[in-house]
């Protein structure tokens, strides 16, 4: 060691190394980290590559365009989960502490299973768990679930908005009386989650609901659709996942049920759900919280700044502007906005998970702000709070024209007043089971 220091060139080298390490530390200290439990291989890779591609491209865009948020750049690293819960938990544990000194802002696993498995850990580690458009419905109640955010749309809001749309198409909710609605659901906790709400809405509005299960993965549905043909419903709500969706559309065609009377839920609404069904999907309707397409200023800017610069994350650039990609971008917008809001309160520096949580709870996206972000029409107006971790609860309806989705409705709002007591009943039951004392949201600021 001594002999090295005796040599001037080595001394300069050591100093340079030390300085570069120091500057590296400084750089890392001014970065905000997103741990990404992504899935790019396995049965759900199509969704994973699209979503995480959009999310990463948005973070990259903010870095390139604005130099991060108030000089704090974003950094991220991926850990492959293959959508497997155990791997998701392992990734969570590995990444939660941050990267090279940059603190973790939030986790975004895009998986109901992984979200459930890391829900308690998120509260313990004080790290927000973002379950955009999915997750536990009762986690909407932030007084019991301070670190969980089913942003934009929880499962109950989903079905409520669909029933409101059907009511609108029938000439009013009072005209639902006597109608027949079948829900074809994926045989999993996700698929079953909204069944009690459908039954409640059926009782309230007087329509007849029939719940038909499709066992996972759903690659054979002949008997279910023959049953549907026998019931002769006015509408079928498709609560599918993965391969179940195109098979449902193909089998509907085989049994003579019209695609334009099938309404897909939030996980039956992508190009990957409709396109493989070919002509059978033409006319299929689904809900969306974020239209597909590239006709939004933020997407055009991402194209110019990130994709055209060769820094895009998508392996196949043709997927730019698809449903999963745009969901990733929307997720990026909301995460970055939370950091921005939190920085306004806590200072222009990398933030802890607890501080970012405050940012999420204080997101206010009105039309003016959405226009500033270039996301007007892409993201619904959102106002989150301590007690409301969903914020929106509205959807738009889109229809598959054989090649792409076309938006066919304005925002349709879920009946959140009706749903809130049910959500609170469930969250308080959870709090009692876990010994959680709910926060007093009137004292939160």
């Amino acid at each position, binding site marked *: 060691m001594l002999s090295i220091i005796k040599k001037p060139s080595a001394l300069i080298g050591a100093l340079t190394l030390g300085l570069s390490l120091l500057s590296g530390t400084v750089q890392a200290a001014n970065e905000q980290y997103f741990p990404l439990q992504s899935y*790019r*291989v*396995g*049965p*759900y*890779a*199509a969704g*994973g*590559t699209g979503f995480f591609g959009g999310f990463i491209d948005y973070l990259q865009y903010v870095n390139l365009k604005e130099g991060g948020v108030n000089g704090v750049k974003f950094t991220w690293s991926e850990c492959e989960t293959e959508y497997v819960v155990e791997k998701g938990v392992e990734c969570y544990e590995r990444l939660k502490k941050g990267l090279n000194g940059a603190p973790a802002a939030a986790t975004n696993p895009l998986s109901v299973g992984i979200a459930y498995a890391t829900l308690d850990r998120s509260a313990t580690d004080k790290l927000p768990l973002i379950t955009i458009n999915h997750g536990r419905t009762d986690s909407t109640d932030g007084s019991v679930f301070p670190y969980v955010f089913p942003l934009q749309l929880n499962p109950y809001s989903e079905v409520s908005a669909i029933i409101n749309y059907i009511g609108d198409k029938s000439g009013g909710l009072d005209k639902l009386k006597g109608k027949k609605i079948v829900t074809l659901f994926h*045989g999993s906790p996700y698929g079953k989650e909204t069944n009690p709400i459908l039954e409640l809405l059926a009782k309230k509005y007087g329509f007849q609901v029939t*719940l*038909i*299960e*499709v*066992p*996972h*993965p759903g*690659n*054979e549905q*002949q*008997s*279910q659709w*023959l*049953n549907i*043909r*026998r019931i002769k419903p006015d509408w079928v709500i498709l609560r599918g996942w*993965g*391969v179940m969706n*195109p*098979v449902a559309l*193909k089998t509907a*065609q*085989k*049994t*003579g049920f019209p695609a334009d009377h099938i309404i897909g839920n939030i996980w039956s609404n992508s190009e*990957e759900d409709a*396109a*493989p*069904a*070919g*002509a*059978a999907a033409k006319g299929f309707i689904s809900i969306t919280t974020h239209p597909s397409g590239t006709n939004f200023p933020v997407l055009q800017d991402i194209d110019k700044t990130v994709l055209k610069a060769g820094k895009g994350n998508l*392996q*196949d650039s043709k*997927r730019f502007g698809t449903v999963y990609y745009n969901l990733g971008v929307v997720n990026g917008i909301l995460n970055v906005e939370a950091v921005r809001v939190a920085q306004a309160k806590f200072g222009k520096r990398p933030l802890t998970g607890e501080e970012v949580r405050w940012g999420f709870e204080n997101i206010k996206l009105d039309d003016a702000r959405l226009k500033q972000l270039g996301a007007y029409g892409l993201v619904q107006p959102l106002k989150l709070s301590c007690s409301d971790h969903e914020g929106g609860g509205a959807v738009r309806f889109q229809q598959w024209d054989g090649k792409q989705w076309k938006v066919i409705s304005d925002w349709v709002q879920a009946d959140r007043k009706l749903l809130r007591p049910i959500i609170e009943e469930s969250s308080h039951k959870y709090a009692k089971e876990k010994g959680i004392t709910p926060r007093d949201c009137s004292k939160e600021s």
Partner: protein
Amino acid sequence: MEFFLEVLTGGLLAGLMYSLVAIGFVLIYKASGVFNFAQGSMVLFSALTFVSLLERGVPFWVSFAVTLLTMIALAWAIERVVLRPLVNRPPITLFMATLGLSYIIEGVAQAMWGAQVHGLELGISDAPLEIGGMLLSQFDLFSAATAGILVLFLSLLFNKTRIGISLRAVADDQLAALAVGIKLQRIWMIVWAVAGFVGLVAGLLWGARLGVQFSLSLVVLKALPVLIIGGFTSIGGAIVGGLIIGASEKLAEVYLGPIIGGGIENWFPYVLALLFLLVRPAGIFGERAIERV
């Protein structure tokens, strides 16, 4: 009654789709005694290769031929790299090797062609035909005809050609076949190539129905009870087993499902297969193992 017949017919046609996958298992098991867990991955790999070529503008039949050549190359590689070094090892070792192979093929397929879901149109209409008040899918009828032709082709191959006689000799007794000069490795390669061809046909039909995506490899789950019921060594058995499974699972879902909660289609075939195992372990057409003790 009309509804019952419609469910039954739909089930029988669906069952033939399961048989298409099951035949691939039977071929390899007959010739080598190996339960090839990788058959589902071969279905996925072939369909993904085919559709990816098609999407790159390669004409249909050229894509088919190139994919078939790829499957033959895969068969050659499997024989050289996996099977040959494991000759004379216990069946469980070979089974575990195919289990590993399954994951490798799936991984390679996604690495080569990506994780995207692809639509596949074979130009066969899926509009329903009304026959005697029942709606029958044209696509399912086409698939049933394809399964029938495939069985006929394989029967001719096995019974009327020199290769077929060698295959049967190997299936009967590998040591005796070796003793009369049959090259075991060559036979294995041929069998894996034919299984690859069957996988390609199954992959195209299932791919047109489900979309070409990772879930294609899961269709093997439907083939297992078919094999247990039909027998692991009979191509005819795979067809009969498929018909039994297809019909019974649909009837069970429609008539028993509402009573016991629905969604029984996945496990009901296994109940049936278990009952068959208790009564007839070799399946309806399977060869009973006779051992000198």
